[in-house]
């Protein structure tokens, strides 16, 4: 692979309003997010010549978005995807810029994730679900249709084998909720969670309570990627991309044969090699958090906490803003909002920049950051950024 370390940067981030019922279309939301990211970068919309998005057939097309920004880009691309798609599209954008096919690329995720198509299910045809997933006929008839059940199967075994408890899941939740109390735009701003309350909450599907599930929200997020050279002309502080590794797959997305193996395990090595740093160099993190346990498993996969000691690591408060690895500092998908991971990307860029300097929201040391995506045990992607 060509050496791309520090040659590309995220130069703009932006979001639409976040709500439970936007009362508008994903196109309107995407336009709001794109305009905010463009303003943040301080560029003209017409400087963007590539538009990319991921969706679950619940969004607007990049072509539409470009059209209503008054831009006629060289390149548009829309993929089906969720967790880790942001990292993968950034990798694609870098490839396009590196080969001279585009100069500046805007990537977005827009969804009425609460009032429209909900990831948590509801209203889907069972026959459709059976065909939509690899091996679907072998799980849907048994009532296993929610990601909480699929990931719960991994969690049960992993937790039992590694001495992880309900309280350890609770530490992930309470840490992220604590961050949300400093973020007025978070869904759970003003709704702190104590360990006592967490442990009193009933499970919806073991080992997860409602607090262990991510939120569902209506919103759009956008980021702008360009070369380090062009980044100099932007008004924002660039977040340089040190390295990426995207989507190492393991077999069978939804039928689990080897529950001890997840794709993130395979992303870590090429990621750190590309970035030229190791887990010990990471100051802050955005860890994909569709469920609390997914955070624990990724801390282990990316070597951010030693295997077998992940529980102690989170119990010691290390995910909090004054801990060893301040993580998901806007509240994450557990308590801020949910755009299939992109809201965590926005926050890590802002932290790396030091945008909250002078407030209690800024992590003290923010030179090098990791941002991970988890589509499931089957697919993952991650990147490392620096200021």
């Amino acid at each position, binding site marked *: 692979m060509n050496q791309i370390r520090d040659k590309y940067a995220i130069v703009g981030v932006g979001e639409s309003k976040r709500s439970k019922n936007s009362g508008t279309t994903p196109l309107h939301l995407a336009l709001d997010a794109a305009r905010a990211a463009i303003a943040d970068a301080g560029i003209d919309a017409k400087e963007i010549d590539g538009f990319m998005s991921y969706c679950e057939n619940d969004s607007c097309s990049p072509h539409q978005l470009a059209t209503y920004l008054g831009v006629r880009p060289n390149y548009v691309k829309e993929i089906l995807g969720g967790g880790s798609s942001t990292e993968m599209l950034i990798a694609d954008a870098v490839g396009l810029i590196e080969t001279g096919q585009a100069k500046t690329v805007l990537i977005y995720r827009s969804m009425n994730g609460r009032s429209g198509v909900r990831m948590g299910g509801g209203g889907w045809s069972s026959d459709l679900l059976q065909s939509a997933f690899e091996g679907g006929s072998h799980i*849907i008839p*048994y*009532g*296993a249709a929610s990601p909480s059940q699929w990931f719960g199967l991994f969690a*049960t075994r992993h937790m039992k084998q590694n001495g992880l408890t309900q309280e350890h899941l609770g530490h992930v939740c309470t840490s992220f909720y604590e961050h949300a109390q400093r973020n007025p735009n978070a869904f759970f701003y003003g709704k702190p969670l104590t360990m006592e309350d967490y442990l009193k909450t009933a499970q919806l599907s073991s080992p997860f309570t409602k607090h262990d599930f991510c939120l569902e929200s209506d919103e759009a997020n956008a980021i702008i990627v360009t070369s380090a050279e062009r980044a100099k002309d932007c008004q924002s502080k660039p977040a340089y991309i040190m390295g990426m590794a995207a989507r190492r797959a393991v077999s069978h997305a939804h039928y689990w044969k080897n529950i001890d193996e997840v794709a993130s395990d395979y992303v870590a090595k090429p990621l750190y090699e590309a970035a030229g740093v190791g887990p010990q160099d990471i100051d802050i993190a955005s860890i994909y958090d569709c469920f609390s346990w997914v955070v624990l498993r990724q801390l282990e996969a990316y070597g951010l906490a030693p295997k077998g000691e992940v529980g102690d690591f989170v119990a010691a408060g290390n995910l909090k803003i004054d801990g060893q690895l301040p993580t998901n500092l806007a509240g994450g998908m557990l308590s801020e909002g949910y755009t299939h991971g992109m809201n965590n990307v926005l926050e890590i860029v802002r932290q790396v920049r030091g945008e909250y300097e002078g407030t209690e929201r800024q992590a003290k040391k923010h030179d090098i950051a990791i941002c991970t995506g988890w589509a499931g045990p089957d697919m993952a992607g991650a990147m490392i950024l620096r200021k």
Partner: protein
Amino acid sequence: MIEETKVEYAKPIPLKTIDNAPYWDAADRHELVLQKCTSCNTYAHPPGPACAHCGSQELVWENQGTDISGTIYTYVVSYRPFLPGFENDVPLVIAVVELDHLPDVKIIGNVLGATAEQLDIGTPVKMVWQDITEDRALPQWTLA
């Protein structure tokens, strides 16, 4: 007008596809068959259009009979139905079961009649077949 007294099965019925039909046909006969790759001797479950291990198309179906036992590899207990039809089945136990005679094969099912307290990794179970319609049956598990 004839009064309809039969209770309809409200849960999803396994969809037979070009790749999995022999598995479900056997289930309807209360038997377990597994797809096997004769190139690398790996069992493929769930079955597919080619071997997921080596890509070979040399696939056969091997009858495992009717006396199938295993142990729980992992499980969840759901306290809310995530699909229509399961309202009366909660708490619902969903388990991944490792077959005793082929530990590489894991088969997902419900553990019928089991409570959360009775379950752990390694708990022994055996396969039973639940008649869900006149001509369809679903492989399931019960505590051994």
